[in-house]
């Protein structure tokens, strides 16, 4: 224990040890340290290091610490695999040969619109079937999904979770539909997608408009067996930890110039939104981008403000 305590005491900054080292060691000899004291000395050394470090040492150190914390967090998270499949919904309406007359062309256009509506109708019926709680309960039961329970542990909560973990992305005028499902087990994720495709086939038949034949459903990409997890995203999480740690280091080091830092942060948000608005125009305002831009601009402003304060205090060179 004493050896450990001496090691912990050596973690204090050199200048501090030169001034207090001897008397601190005398104190440690007097108290006969226990585990609580070891932690106390370790905490004291860390605090002393942080308060005495120059910003150019503190910012990368906290950035590194943030990256390590996020890497550990990512390591402890349960990985999630995503299986996906792509299907094409083709209407079974027989097209007439291109008409020569205006009347025939108009009839063709009306037919095209009817076909588009039919496809959308069919796709909606297919998705509704693939989200049907009764069918999903069967999948959860057969595949033994969510064994540890979700929410309050009811089957309804598990169904809601399965619905949240499933995504339907239509494209090409809803004729092509990508379906994906995320789950901690890659094989189960693939099997769920296979079953969902089966349900969608049933939905296609059940959802056909009376008097018409169902659309033709072609599986373009069958349910994939994922090899790499999509979550946790290691590079993203480590980058977030690095950035957050460095920002905290900047803000802490530049706390004496807090007015400049706060002003930069406050100006950063509207400035970023304004600049983005100039570049991308009106559509930007109707998207989800403004809140993200506001937060990003504010963080950028805080970073720039604190860097300005720090550079004015102690230039990197000279």
């Amino acid at each position: 224990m004493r050896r450990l305590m001496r090691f912990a005491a050596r973690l204090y900054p050199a200048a501090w040890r030169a001034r207090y080292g001897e008397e601190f060691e005398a104190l440690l000899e007097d108290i006969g340290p226990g585990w609580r004291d070891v932690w106390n000395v370790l905490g004291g050394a860390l605090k002393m290091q942080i308060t005495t470090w120059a910003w150019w040492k503190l910012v990368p150190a906290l950035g590194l610490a943030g990256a390590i914390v996020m890497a550990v967090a990512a390591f402890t998270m349960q990985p999630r695999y995503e299986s996906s499949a792509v299907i094409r919904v083709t209407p079974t309406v027989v097209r007439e040969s291109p008409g020569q007359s205006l009347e025939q062309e108009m009839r063709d256009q009306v037919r095209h619109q009817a076909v588009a509506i039919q496809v959308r109708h069919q796709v909606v019926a297919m998705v509704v079937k693939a989200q049907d709680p009764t069918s999903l309960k069967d999948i959860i039961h057969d595949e033994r999904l969510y064994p540890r329970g979700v929410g309050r542990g009811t089957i309804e909560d598990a169904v809601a979770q399965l619905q949240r973990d499933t995504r339907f992305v239509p494209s090409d005028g809803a004729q092509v539909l990508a379906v994906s499902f995320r789950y901690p087990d890659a094989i189960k994720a693939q099997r769920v997608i296979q079953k969902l495709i089966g349900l969608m086939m049933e939905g296609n038949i059940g959802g056909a408009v009376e008097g018409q034949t169902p659309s033709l459903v072609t599986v373009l990409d069958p349910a994939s067996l994922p090899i790499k997890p999509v979550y946790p995203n290691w590079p993203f999480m480590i980058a977030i930890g690095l950035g957050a740690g460095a920002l905290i280091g900047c803000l802490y080091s530049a706390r004496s110039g807090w007015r400049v830092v706060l002003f930069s942060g406050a100006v950063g948000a509207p400035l970023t939104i304004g600049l983005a608005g100039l570049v991308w125009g009106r559509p930007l305002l109707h998207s989800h981008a403004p809140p993200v831009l506001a937060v990003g601009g504010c963080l950028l402003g805080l970073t720039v403000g604190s860097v300005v304060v720090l550079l004015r205090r102690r230039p990197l060179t000279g």
Partner: protein
Amino acid sequence: MSDPTLLVLASLADGEKHGYAVMEDVMRFAGVRLGPGTLYGAITRLEQRGWIRPVGGGDRRQPYALTAVGRTYLEAQVANLDRVLRTAMERLRPA
């Protein structure tokens, strides 16, 4: 009251003491055990602010004493605490 700097100042108010003696004294009058890291963190801050100073020497156990500024600060803090305590006591007294 668990602010280590105030506890150390209070301990040194009746005369100079070294680290271990401060630790024991604080434990006796406040029932708070200051860890070695916490104690020396407080001593470092107090010395930097000029509220305490090392006295004597020669021994590894370095004693510290209150400076005049430190005493003034402690008196102001104690007066504040006293006001808070008296108000609390009055308000707690049954009507």
